[in-house]
Every structure is written in C-alpha cells, then in structure tokens.
C-alpha cells in the first residue's frame, strides 16, 4: 500500500542501521513516548537489530494504560446508570478498574457498546433519542479533536442525549513530568507521530531548550523509527540537541490548526491524574462550561466506591520507563493477555502486551 510498503524497505533499513552503528559511540537511553512505537519496535525486532548500547525505553504513550483506576471506576459506574448507553473504543472494554471491567458491567446487564469512531457514537444517540448516550473520551491530542468535533456536531444538530466523559490527556506535560522526576536518565526522545501531527513539531521545542534533550518525531514504519534513532544519535554525538522530524509527510512545524482550534473551542486545560505519574498540572482536557450539557461528568452523579490498585502490578513503573515489562514478576506468569492484571497487558499499545506478543526481549 502506498506510504506504507516503501517505508518498510529492508535495504534502506540496513543502511540506516549501519549509519547508527557507525555514528553512535556513547551508550544512550532513548524513550519512545508512544505505545504505537513500542509495538512497531518489537514487531520489527528493532531492539535486537540496534547496537547494544542503544537502549530503548517505552514511555507513557498508551492512553488506556495511563487512565487512573479512579477514572476507570467512574466510567464503569456510569455504565450502570439505568437506561444509559456507554459507547467506547474497544481497547477500554477489558481494562480492569479497581475491581471490575466494562466487560463485567456489560455481563451484569449494562449497555456498553464498542464504536470505532465518535461518529458511530453520535449515530447511536440519534437512533436512541429517548436514551442517554455517553462516549468515553480517552486519548491524547490525536483523538481529542475528533471528540471535540463530535461535541460541536451534537450541539449543531441539537442532539441533547449525547455527552462525553472526558479523560483526555496531553503528552508534552507528561514528558516534562518524567524528565523532572529524573528517575530514568534519558538522552533523547522519539516523538509521537500522530500526536505531533496535531500539535506540530514546534510544540516540543521546550525539550532541547529547557532540558537539553533532543526529540525526533517518527512515523510508525520501521524506516521512520530507525531514521529517528539515527537523528537522535547524531544530535547526541554532536552535542547539539534539537528537534528532527522524520515524519514530515504528516507532521508540520505548526501542526493541524483546524484540529487545534476545535480542541480549544470545546476543551480547557486542567490538571489530570495519570497512572504512574500521579497528578500532572496542565495535562488534562475538561469540557468547557459553555458545553457543560455535553459533559457526562456534570450530567450524571455516580459513586464509584473506593479505589484500589492492582496488587503487584508494575504498570505505573513501566509507563515511567523505570522498568521494562519482563522485570515485572507477574509478567507472562500471573499476567498474560488472556488474563491481564494491569492495563499495560490489555491495550494493543500497552508495553506489557507488546513484549508478550513479540517475544520476550532480552533485558
């Protein structure tokens, strides 16, 4: 397929690997922010192809994984509101909250429906005018504009039975939080390609400026990722941290202005709680008071009960990059994709699921 196959060319991949091998002298630890990158890196075996002293760590870029148990519990409690239809992306259905999943709620009689798009959620609201339809808004800057667009559309069409529980999160503040914590020493960051399609490569300038850490925006094909690693290695070796963009076919310096403006029209920036990172200032998106009637958090009062964490699960540490999944004692034993204990083993973007699926990478 166009724009996919040519970015998987094995000869070019070998050439890029050779370049990295040649240029890279000092040991480096790079973080791929995005779970989609973790998945691609393991799928194409890039960890084993790269020189040993180039260490890749996965980061917090899995929206399902970083959703705090308290928020999952709220969503599950919402599903139990009589007559309510909860619509959600498939990834969320099997994620365990303190005690249950949305799948459990469904088995217990709640009306939980999987959708591929907020457009489908709007359709559910249109064909069920006498029922309340809630969309579970989980996702980063890539997804938030599509949810904002759906809310704007609901308003334009007078669709009064549609609302959103917004658990959206912003990626630059989380990256800052990880660097500020200083638990893992990172020499460079592989930037999330589709988030940056929206926010623009310039939104990452604070990394080289404030932290002296380079960032390379990458697409999701092996050549994109290798090119990003090659750029990072060059910038590190030359001592010149900056921003590189190997995904210029989708990412511009300023991002997608239409998407940014609709996001800003509907959402305001608030603090948010992340699994593994705690409360991060300025890292969440709440629905603005002007759109309060589309805010499921305001519309429905629910009591999710006390929050509990998953015993022994190190998903939070995995998301901060302080451990790799195989270092979790439950990995592949008590915790498998068939019987996941933490969200990092459930989501397709979860690092634990990716490590499990594509071989137990050597530590």
């Amino acid at each position, binding site marked *: *397929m*166009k*724009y*996919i196959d*040519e*970015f998987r060319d094995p*000869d*070019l991949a*070998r*050439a*890029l*690997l*050779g*370049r990295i*091998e*040649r240029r890279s002298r000092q040991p480096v630890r790079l973080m791929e922010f*995005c*779970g*989609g990158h973790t998945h691609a890196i393991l799928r194409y075996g890039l960890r084993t192809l790269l020189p040993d002293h180039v260490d890749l760590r996965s980061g917090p*870029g*899995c*929206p*399902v994984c970083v959703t705090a148990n308290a928020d999952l519990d709220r969503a599950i409690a919402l599903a139990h509101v009589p007559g309510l239809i909860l619509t959600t*992306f498939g*990834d969320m259905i099997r994620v365990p909250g303190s005690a249950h999943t949305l799948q459990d709620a469904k088995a217990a009689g709640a009306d939980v429906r999987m959708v*591929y*798009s*907020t*457009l*489908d959620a709007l359709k559910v609201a249109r064909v069920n005018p006498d029922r309340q339809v809630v969309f579970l808004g*989980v*996702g*980063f800057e*890539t*997804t938030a*504009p*599509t949810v904002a*667009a759906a809310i704007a*559309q609901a308003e334009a069409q007078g669709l009064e039975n549609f609302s959103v529980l917004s658990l959206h999160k912003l990626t630059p503040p989380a990256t800052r939080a990880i660097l500020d914590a200083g638990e893992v020493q990172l020499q460079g960051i592989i930037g*999330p*390609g*589709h*988030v940056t*399609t*929206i926010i623009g490569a310039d939104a990452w300038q604070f990394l080289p400026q404030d932290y002296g850490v380079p960032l390379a925006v990458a697409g*999701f094909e092996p*050549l994109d990722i290798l*090119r990003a690693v090659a750029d990072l290695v060059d910038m590190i070796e030359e001592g010149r941290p900056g921003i590189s963009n*190997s995904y*210029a*076919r*989708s*990412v*511009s310096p300023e991002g*997608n202005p*239409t*998407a940014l403006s*609709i996001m800003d029209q509907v959402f305001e920036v608030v603090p948010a709680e992340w699994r593994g990172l705690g409360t991060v200032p300025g890292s969440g998106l709440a629905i603005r008071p002007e759109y309060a009637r589309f805010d499921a958090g305001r519309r429905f009062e629910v009591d999710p009960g006390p929050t509990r964490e998953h015993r022994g699960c190190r998903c939070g540490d995995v998301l901060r990059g302080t451990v790799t999944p195989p270092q979790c004692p439950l990995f592949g034993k008590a915790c498998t994709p068939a019987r996941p204990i933490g969200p990092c083993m459930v*989501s397709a*973007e979860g690092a634990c699921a990716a490590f499990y699926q594509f071989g137990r990478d050597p530590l």
Partner: protein
Amino acid sequence: MCLAVPARVETITGLQAEVEVGGVRRAVSVVLTPEVRPGDYVYVHTGYAISIVDEAEAAESLRLWAELAESYTTEELFPHMAPSSER
C-alpha cells in the same frame, strides 16, 4: 489508540469523504482537514482525516535515505561484518 492509516480520497461531499484503504472504501469525516481535495492521501484516525499527506516530503525522505545508503560502502555500513575490521 493513536493509530492512523494512509488512505486515498476518492470523493468529497460536504464534510464527508469516501476514501480507499487497502482496496476497501470507507466514509470518513474531513471536518479536521477542510482543505482536502480528491486524489489526496490522508491519515485517517478513528473515522477522521487528521492530516493530508505531503507527497513531496514523503518522496524527499525516501530520496534522502536512499542517498545515505549509497554514500556508504558495505564495510562502512557494517564494520562488525568486515573481516579485516579492527572493531
């Protein structure tokens, strides 16, 4: 969840477009990329086009990488595989 795939825009009606991806036609919203034209490629995320593929940039990336590959000999690219290498 941040998955997006490239698709070719066939027709546009208002804020909706028909796209083709891997031989399958689907309807997507172009509300986030209002400047899109038929024949463009777009990245589609959860039913919305989120960017229009910059064809010149795509070609330029591939050209640069090919150039980079050609400017090294095999020994330079894979020093560990060269028998006489000192590494």
